[in-house]
């Protein structure tokens, strides 16, 4: 009877020791799992943050590129429009000069006719330009022509 009690006592102690051992192991295991999970979560968080940063950067770059493209397009369109205006002005240039030339001939003819027909201008039509002035206006040839004959 005494022996049996002792046997139960030893068995109880063994069971307690086993339970404690199991509990300790389990706690150690849990700690390891938690540490691993924390480390993994940290890495995942860092990777997510990196990805978000990269995505934001990419979006900003895309926006910048779009803006630059749009500005270049505006610039190109403006330059093309100016080029067209320039070409049109150059194309019209000779025509404009010809028109001015014709108007000038017309005006000259009319002025000469009016001047030579007007008796009030007759004195001026007979009066020669003096050599000094002729030389200044039309060069030495005109001055010689106008009669500084030596």
């Amino acid at each position, binding site marked *: 009877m005494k022996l049996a009690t002792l046997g139960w006592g030893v068995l109880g102690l063994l069971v307690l020791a086993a339970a404690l051992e199991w509990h300790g192991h389990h706690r150690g295991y849990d700690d390891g799992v938690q540490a691993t999970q924390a480390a993994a979560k940290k890495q995942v968080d860092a990777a997510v943050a990196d990805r978000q940063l990269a995505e934001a950067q990419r979006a900003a770059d895309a926006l910048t590129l779009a803006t630059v493209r749009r500005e270049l397009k505006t*610039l190109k369109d*403006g*330059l093309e429009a*100016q*080029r067209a*205006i*320039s070409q049109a*002005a*150059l194309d*019209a*240039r*000779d025509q*404009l*000069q010809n028109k*001015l*030339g014709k108007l*000038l001939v017309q*005006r*000259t003819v009319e*002025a*000469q006719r009016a*001047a*030579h027909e007007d008796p009030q*201008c007759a004195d*001026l*039509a*007979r*009066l*020669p*330009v*003096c*050599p000094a002035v*002729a030389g200044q*206006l*039309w*060069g030495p040839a*005109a001055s010689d*022509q*106008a*009669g500084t*004959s030596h």
Partner: protein
Amino acid sequence: MPAYRPLDRRLTAPIPAPPPPPANCSYQGQPAVCVLDGLLSIIQWQGVRERANADRATSATVTNQGTE
């Protein structure tokens, strides 16, 4: 937004002076320009100015500096 481009030679070529007026009068026996013809030659110079200003306006347009 300036758009520089080389100016066409027609716009930069020198404009020749108009020919001197005819010598329809005489001074001391030599042919001379009459005062009336001399005055009328101002019209030719006015024409030169018009041509020059027209080319200046074209140059301004070609170089995108407006039409004034």
